[in-house]
């Protein structure tokens, strides 16, 4: 085989190399949520899931957009959706955002929200990415969790801040039974 260039270092070498530069970025932002997402966040504060609808194609968007990305026109109005749906996919996380090992595994997944006018199994749907509670590792591994009916567990009104975290998680309706 041809010999390629490149000098491999061990983890130890990289720390003891002369002239290693440590630099901590200090980049900070205050992101503008914009019109549609602001309405969504205010809805969460009230304990409601708000979407937007495009009357031209009938698509319902959660989280809401102020424009329909398929018709490229402004969406027509905001609508409230039921705070329940079914699990499209769910996984068990044993690691944190920084790759550390978690003491207790976490469940996260995609929730397909109940949306009037949408046929079951459509490729596109109104939905949210969130944590899931009240299910077991077994439920995820056997596939029992997929398609399970779930409902938002809201934080108490006084704790809500207009954040995606105003929903604590989605939990099975009726304690895990369908």
């Amino acid at each position, binding site marked *: 085989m041809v010999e390629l260039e490149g000098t491999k270092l061990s983890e130890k070498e990289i720390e003891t190399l002369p*002239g290693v*530069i440590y*630099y901590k*970025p*200090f*980049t*900070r*932002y*205050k*992101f*503008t*949520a*914009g*019109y*549609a*997402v602001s309405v969504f966040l205010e809805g969460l504060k009230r304990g409601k899931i708000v979407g937007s609808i495009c009357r031209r194609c009938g698509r319902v968007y959660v989280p809401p*957009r*102020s*424009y329909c*990305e*398929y018709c*490229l*026109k402004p969406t027509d109005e905001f609508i409230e959706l039921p705070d329940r749906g079914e699990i499209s996919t769910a996984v068990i996380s044993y690691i944190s955002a920084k790759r550390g090992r978690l003491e207790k595994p976490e469940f996260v997944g995609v929730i397909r929200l109940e949306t009037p006018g949408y046929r079951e199994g459509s490729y596109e749907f109104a939905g949210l990415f969130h944590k899931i509670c009240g299910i077991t590792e077994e439920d995820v591994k056997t596939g029992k969790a997929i398609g399970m009916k779930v409902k938002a567990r809201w934080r108490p009104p006084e704790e809500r801040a207009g954040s995606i975290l105003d929903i604590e998680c989605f939990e099975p309706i009726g304690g895990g039974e369908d």
Partner: protein
Amino acid sequence: MTTKPRVAVIGMGYSGFQPTTPHASFREMMFEAALKAYSIAGIDDPRSQVDAFISCQEDYWDGIAIADEFAPEPIGGVLRPTFTVSGDGLQGVAQGVMLLKTGYFDVITVESHAKPSDIVDLGKIYEMALDPIYVRPTAPKTAVPHYIAALDAVAYMDSRESGEEDFAEVAAKNRNNGLTNPLASYAANVSIDEILESEHVAYPLTMYDISQPVDAALVAVLASDTAVDRLGAWDRAVWIDGIGYNTETYIPERHVYGTMPSIRRSALTAYGEAGITNPLSQLDFAEVDDRYSFMELLSLEEALLGEDSIELLRRGDTYPEGKFPVNASGGSLATGAPFEATGLMRLYYAYMKLLSMQEGRGLVVSWRGPPTYTSAAAVLSYYGGGEE
């Protein structure tokens, strides 16, 4: 040499041009700009009529790693050929021109946006732009990144026997020019003396010599001559006769201060394609980089618009009513520098200006700003709505 097909800008739109835009996300600003551009271009259904979408942006400006994730939805690019150029909008236009010249594509959208008001400390972002090993550890922590431009300004003064009064004149000219430009948030009725009396941010540059960041989104629709015909867009087709972009070294020690060779090479490419041999007589006006006042003078020289741009300025030629108006829009000094959208901002003004003329030809030059030495240039022309 002009290769077939010929390429035109057939519509442009914008949103923002305010120091802050708290009402809209950058995506909503992109959408507004896109709708306006498509409306002018006469594109009813961008999702089927546009063949590819180009968004020009940088991760650290948006505060999102892999910021192209957010590019497609607002401009009609969902499930369509959309990609990002990590560079100035004019570099994106150059990619669009190439795509059209392959013959496989007929209509291209180019977008760029900036939301500097989302950034808490812009100096820290600029610090990230320095080589992490050789430059960052010893770099000044104040007047970032203006001290880098100041190095060029000092070297320019030195080599041209020009002085702060020339820079101040450019700053005064452009800030006053902006008073007639509805987009110019930083226009001012300021005098040369007032500028000369104000404090230096980084010698020899005062706050009037330095452009401010501004929130803006811009969209340009490009079309091949076939598509211009099909869309009946001759009346709004501003032709891109030539376009070039160029990058110089990123190593500060290797840059020759007081010069900007990337502008010269970009302009030479654009002139070559447009068949321009004597720019000053063959062009009617120029919108050139003025992120810093001295850059207008340097840009003109590097773009071969006369041997001595200070002389042009002193004679009054580059004023709006002069022989060769430069930055009649007010440039970045009056309108601001919306990061990578700066090139499209200059293109927008040139586009509107040409449409208002019976017939004309202009030059647009954009530099990406410190600490880069990357630039782009385009020659644009308009024939008053008829076929050439």
